[in-house]
């Protein structure tokens, strides 16, 4: 995972700096990035395994080394996008006067890069790294234990790690073991979060360009965070009781700032659609061409390596699956996403409003949510299998519980994005607006309706876009919960494709991935970007 992170970071810096510094390059690189990040990461899993491990199919399992390479590449695909957007946003945020001053004092080339660009990028890199690691953890439970290929010559990927541990526990239907693995995983994630990212984040503050003070997190609070971190570090070695005490106050303080930062990062990221809209046609066409080219290249490599002809695969696909079927399963998957989204939106909006209205509740709930969101949704899957699927194996309700399980799993992949965006928005309502509404006695339901909900509108949109991204991702795993336990949909189609006859399987995987990416892009264009244009009015002026 660390190796993948180093690769992702290098990629992010190179790609980001080229995009932000070269106007011409950005015409191609920006839309390309936008397409790539729309591809559900989990959908890439079978493709990577096809390509990397494809050579070794047959009776002999691929060597350990190949497996590790494949898993690193996968984690890379999950990690790379957030820091890349972070780098671009960081460079774009360098104020013009600083750029001009650097120019006036003769800073060029590597000196400019080292002294201006890298420091400017640092805070964004830290915050987006938190997101990147989250994406990485998400994959761990999936990619460490994977089987694919037809049963007789099945390829079993088994990498020693926590992910496999949890997956195996689920296979054995051992609730205790699965829970234990989950607790250890969350423990590691939280520890890394506290010990590495949050102190780094506090340091990153130094490199931020001064703009208007962020609402309600002013200088005093920042210094108390530094103090909190120091105290926290001191007490790490002291008795357990004091540890828990300091952890609580530390967490409460840091959380709020972390949230705000993450929100800011995400808002930056969401400006890209606007910028992409201004890109000339040739840039867009070229970027799509590159993407399609890469897909075709992948297809050829996959199929060639298995000494199969493309024509055979396509003709097999044509006889096996009709376009109508593909549309039908896409719609089925979509309906699951819509249901999960509706549930997620309603509970998170309620929770967001509650948090906004009561400091006490906020202090109680936010740390709980933080732990909740640090659990990678994929790690929960085995638990759901044990609780919702196994007990109903032979009952007529199986269809219902399966669909319920699938929606629940999608929900875990969606809800946190919405929640934290909404919480950030309600916390971000400027103080003067709050005072004005109090002075003019706007309270209760009117306050919620006229102030809180409109104020969270942009955040709801941003959260929705991310939630749908997470939802598609979760879909791939959630529809095919275990062997012979699946509900019809695009996700299960994709998973089943990997255990088909090789040529057909490869084509099917690509077909479903393309449909999925296409659907994501279409929904982005038709729904979210249109709404985003309206969201401008609901932003507070800086």
């Amino acid at each position, binding site marked *: 995972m660390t190796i993948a992170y180093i690769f992702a970071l290098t990629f992010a810096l190179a790609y980001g700096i080229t995009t932000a510094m070269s106007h011409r390059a950005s015409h191609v690189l920006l839309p390309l990035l936008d397409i790539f990040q729309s591809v559900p990461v989990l959908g890439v899993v079978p493709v990577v395994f096809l390509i990397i491990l494809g050579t070794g199919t047959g009776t002999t399992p691929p060597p350990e080394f190949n497996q590790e390479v494949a898993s690193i590449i996968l984690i890379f695909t999950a990690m790379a996008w957030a820091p890349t957007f972070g780098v671009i946003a960081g460079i774009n945020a360098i104020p013009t006067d600083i750029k001009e001053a650097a120019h006036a004092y003769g800073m060029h080339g590597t000196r400019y890069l080292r002294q201006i660009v890298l420091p400017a990028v640092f805070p964004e890199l830290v915050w987006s790294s938190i997101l990147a690691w989250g994406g990485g953890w998400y994959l761990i439970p999936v990619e460490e234990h994977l089987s694919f290929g037809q049963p007789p010559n099945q390829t079993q990927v088994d990498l020693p790690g926590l992910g496999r541990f949890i997956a195996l526990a689920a296979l054995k239907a051992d609730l205790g073991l699965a829970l234990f693995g989950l607790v250890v995983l969350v423990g590691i994630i939280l520890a890394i979060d506290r010990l590495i990212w949050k102190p780094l984040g506090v340091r990153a503050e130094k490199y931020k360009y001064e703009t208007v003070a962020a609402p309600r997190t002013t200088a005093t609070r920042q210094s108390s965070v530094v103090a909190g971190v120091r105290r926290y570090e001191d007490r790490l070695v002291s008795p357990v009781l004091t540890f828990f005490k300091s952890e609580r106050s530390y967490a409460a303080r840091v959380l709020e700032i972390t949230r705000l930062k993450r929100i800011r990062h995400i808002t930056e990221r969401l400006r890209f659609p606007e910028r992409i809209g201004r890109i000339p046609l040739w840039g867009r066409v070229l970027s799509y061409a590159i993407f399609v080219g890469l897909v075709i290249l992948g297809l050829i490599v996959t199929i060639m390596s298995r000494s199969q002809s493309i024509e055979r695969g396509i003709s097999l696909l044509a006889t096996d699956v009709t376009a109508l079927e593909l549309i039908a399963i896409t719609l089925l998957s979509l309906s699951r996403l819509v249901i999960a989204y509706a549930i997620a939106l309603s509970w998170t909006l309620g929770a967001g409003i509650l948090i906004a209205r009561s400091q006490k509740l906020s202090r109680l709930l936010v740390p709980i949510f933080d732990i909740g969101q640090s659990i990678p949704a994929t790690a929960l899957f085995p638990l759901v299998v044990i609780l919702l699927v196994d007990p109903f194996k032979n009952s007529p309700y199986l269809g219902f519980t399966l669909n319920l399980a699938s929606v629940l799993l999608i929900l875990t992949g969606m809800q946190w994005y919405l929640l934290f965006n909404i919480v950030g928005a309600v916390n971000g309502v400027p103080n003067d607006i709050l005072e004005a509404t*109090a002075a003019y*006695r*706007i309270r209760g339901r009117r306050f919620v309706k*006229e102030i809180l909900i409109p104020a969270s509108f942009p955040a709801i949109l941003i959260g929705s876009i991310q939630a749908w991204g997470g939802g598609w991702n979760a879909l791939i795993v959630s529809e095919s919960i275990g062997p012979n336990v699946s509900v019809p949909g695009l996700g299960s189609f994709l998973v089943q494709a990997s255990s088909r006859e090789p040529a057909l399987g490869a084509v099917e995987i690509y077909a479903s991935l393309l449909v999925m990416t296409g659907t994501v892009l279409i929904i982005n264009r038709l729904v979210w970007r249109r709404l985003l244009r309206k969201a401008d*009015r609901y932003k507070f002026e800086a």
Partner: protein
Amino acid sequence: MSQASEPILQIKDIAKIYPGEGKSTTVLDHISFDVYKEFLCIVGPSGCGKSTLLRIIDGLDKPTSGQVLFHGQPITSPSPKVGVIFQTFALIPWKTVLGNVLMAISSASIQKEEQLKIAQKYIQDVGLEGFESSYPKELSGGMKQRVGIARALALQPEVLLMDEPFSSLDALTAENLRREVVDIWRDPAYPTGSVIMVTHNVQEAVEMADRVIVLSARPAKIVDDVRIDLERPRSPRDPVLYDLADRIISKIS
């Protein structure tokens, strides 16, 4: 202005102490004064707690001890008879000019049509006719503050509180708006009796006020209470004003 025998507002022994880790910070140190039908300015060095005092007077903030009486009744929450104007305008970005003004009076028990009429009248009075359906983003700073003023006036308040209302504006706009605010306040058609304005601009205070209360640096105490009985309209470049300002500035520093 004539001074009625009954004070409209009584600020009684207000103290504000923020508890901190180890030691607490005293912001307001037992402040008392009465407010009559007058234009009162509160000046003091930045960070001395002027704005906190104003918030306490409106009931937006609670004092650690002491109380504020409005016609003898203690104020604990914002009153519909008090209008507030903010330094940062505090306009809701997704409401139009009309919407922002309406927001002040929509909780009162007035008919919708009547509300609309009142709002439109005050939008006209501050010179924003024709901008009713504009959004704050489309307005200049001066125009935004005019919306803020219209919103406060629409309440037809007895007391108007202003927190550095001109310090986010450019000098020229501020000068015009100052004159207009004084004119509106002197117009007998408006029911507003007392204005309390907080500012760190001493020149602005002596130009506009009947009376200036001078606060010290934190913890804030009243160090002077200056009456200014100059004829109105005043010229901001009147040498007498400069002398008064100098006297006040020497008290602060």
